[in-house]
């Protein structure tokens, strides 16, 4: 009785050993990866204002750019200028936004903030160093002139672009 059970156990072990083979695949190429680390959350510090700023009770959006090849990409972050979802709004919404460098994997990347180009709602960063850069995005929406925002769900979209240059 003992021998057949040993053979059975050996057979089972050999089968499970072959079944546990796993293939890990990866590519090493020049590339840009956009990581959406944190989707933001709007805080509502006053009846007429929504803001992702920490001081306003919101959560900033955090986007990480990983670049494998230096000086090949431009990072472009566009802050919202309209809601993608909202209740009916009868007055204008004033939008403001900013993008700044947060964490960096290489100390020389801290120059990105100094050299950034901002126009309208867009901020451009020339990714001159290979590695990872975290960008913090703040968005603020103020409704009319001291008018309370109607109750409901509000959503807005931050666009993160990585353009080969």
């Amino acid at each position, binding site marked *: 009785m003992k021998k057949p059970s040993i053979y059975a156990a050996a057979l089972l072990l050999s089968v499970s050993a072959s079944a546990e083979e796993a293939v890990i695949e990866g*590519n090493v190429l*020049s590339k840009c990866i956009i*990581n959406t*680390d944190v989707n933001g959350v709007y805080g509502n510090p006053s009846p007429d204002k929504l803001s992702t700023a920490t001081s306003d009770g919101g959560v900033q959006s955090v986007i990480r750019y990983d670049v494998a*090849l230096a000086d090949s990409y431009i990072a472009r972050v566009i802050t919202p200028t309209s809601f*993608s979802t909202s209740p009916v709004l009868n007055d204008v919404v004033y939008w403001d936004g900013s993008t700044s460098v947060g964490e960096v994997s290489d100390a020389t990347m801290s120059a990105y903030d100094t050299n950034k180009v901002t126009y309208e709602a867009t901020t451009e960063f020339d990714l001159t160093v290979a590695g990872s850069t975290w960008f913090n995005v703040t968005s603020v929406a103020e409704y009319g002139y001291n008018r309370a925002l109607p109750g409901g769900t509000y959503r807005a979209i931050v*666009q993160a672009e*990585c353009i080969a240059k």
Partner: protein
Amino acid sequence: MRNLCFIIGMLLTANSLGAHELTPTYPKFKPSYVGGLASTEMTMFNARKDVEFYQLGVFDAEWNPVPFASSEKLLHVPHATRSTFDVFIRDEDLRRAVYICTLSKLRSDIPSNAIISSKICSRTDGTR
């Protein structure tokens, strides 16, 4: 301070919602099996849990759309998968086409209220 940065980095990585990747950075067009068309092969990797569809687009240097063909213009790339696709452009448009881009298409039911849309563009006219 270093420890604090490391901890913040780890926390951010742990909270990562995922990544969007498009390769190669500088694709080269070659004559295709269809006369009058040139093609190039692109690969997209989707690690974003909140996105499954990506819109493919070809643009000139001024961001005007350039006509192109592909098996799908709205790519279905489920989470943690890679998709390889060919982009076909008419020979006459070849000199005009500069950017090949993929743009994430967001669902309306994403729970967050400041949502991030991602767009990556490769450049077909090579490095500057």
